[in-house]
């Protein structure tokens, strides 16, 4: 699939088309968000084949329960990425998944996947490096734990051995840095 053939709509157009259940909406939805959602899912489950199954389930769930989404609730991506994260977290907490992959170092996995995948998003690589420099290590680790590993902030506090309040503050600081960076 070449980049030129990818369909892109504005978020408002896409939401309207999804509400009308048009075929083009499904294609645009996939082309616009599959890579971003897959990046989150594959970091959580750490297995490409399982991640693809979850991505498929995610799109099916988005498509089927789209009536429950409203622009009032926030951004479309926020709603979608929470569906994807919940499916991925359900998967890694299921018995069969736990049996097949025993506990592994979390941050190592993230860097491992990044190293494996860095050819895929080379054009953005410079930006990511700048971004990583902007984020303090403790900010990045808490953000990645919660966003890319599916930890709750309570679990992250346990994992990192810091108080809940500190976790909340660090998380907010990390996201504030992101906002500065993207603006």
């Amino acid at each position: 699939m070449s980049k030129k053939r990818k369909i892109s709509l504005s978020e408002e157009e896409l939401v309207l088309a999804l509400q009308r259940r048009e075929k083009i909406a499904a294609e645009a939805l996939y082309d616009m968000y599959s890579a971003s959602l897959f990046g989150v899912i594959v970091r959580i489950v750490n297995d490409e084949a399982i991640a693809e199954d979850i991505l498929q389930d995610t799109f099916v769930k988005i498509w089927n329960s789209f009536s429950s989404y409203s622009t009032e609730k926030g951004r479309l991506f926020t709603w979608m990425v929470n569906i994807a994260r919940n499916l991925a977290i359900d998967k890694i907490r299921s018995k069969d998944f736990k049996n097949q992959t025993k506990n592994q170092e979390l941050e190592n996995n993230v860097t491992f996947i990044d190293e494996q995948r860095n050819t895929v998003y080379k054009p953005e690589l410079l930006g990511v490096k700048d971004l990583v420099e902007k984020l303090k290590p403790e900010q990045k680790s808490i953000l990645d734990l919660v966003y890319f590993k599916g930890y709750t902030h309570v679990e992250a506090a346990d994992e990192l051995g810091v108080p809940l309040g500190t976790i909340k503050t660090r998380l907010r600081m990390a996201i504030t840095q992101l906002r500065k960076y993207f603006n």
Partner: protein
Amino acid sequence: MEDIKAYIESGILELYVLGDVTPEERTQVEAMAQKHPAIKAELEEIGRSLELYAEENAVEPSENLRNRVLNSLVVNLGDDRTFSSTRTADEEEDNVIIPISRARSNTFFKYAFAACLALLLVSIVALISVYNKLQESNNLVASLQSQNQRFANQTSLMDKELGVFHDASFKMVKLQGTPKSPSSKLTVAWSPVKKKVMIDMTNASMPVNDKDHQYQLWAMVNGKPVDLGVFDADTTSTGMKEMKSIASADAFAVTLERRGGSPTPTMDQMMVIGKF
């Protein structure tokens, strides 16, 4: 406003966007967002930055996943159309190919079977005719062999006859007809050295005997008759016939006796007689 700023800075909005809140907190944040545009704007900003962060960390899934996902969405839509056209083309191709190859193989085997049957019939006919010819040849060989045997026998017999004439030890005695049968004649060849007695049937001239009687050859040794065996006389008799052997004889005579011969000659039935 201080309350709102403190609420924003508590970090609850980030956790809300990350989906890491309790249902009560969720309801509370949504209610606050309805009331305060500043909170709504803050939520929007947090969501946007996390979306961009996800975009920065995007991973392209494999290309074939697109069709898989879109097809599963279309199935849910209840639409018969699929996003991929290659698959249906494959299926059509399969549908076309299978009947053709089947039909071809059917006719092929039909013709092959017919050909085999025809070949079998031709082979059987050829085999029968060859068998008949072989039988003919075998018969011919058998008849030629028996003919050959006959010739060989005849030749050896004639050799023997000629040998009698050529052998100096043989004496020829011409027996002449008696008054009872004046026209009768018989030649006897006798070799005292080899003790052999033979009669020449070819040149014999004896009346044909009936089936109750046979001619009997006698040798006269010192005036006494000695039996030399019996023979039949008919018009087709040929060749030399060997009789019983005898070392010495004064004369030979033939009498007509009962079939099988008699121990003593019946003198009034003497047909021919010859002396040295």
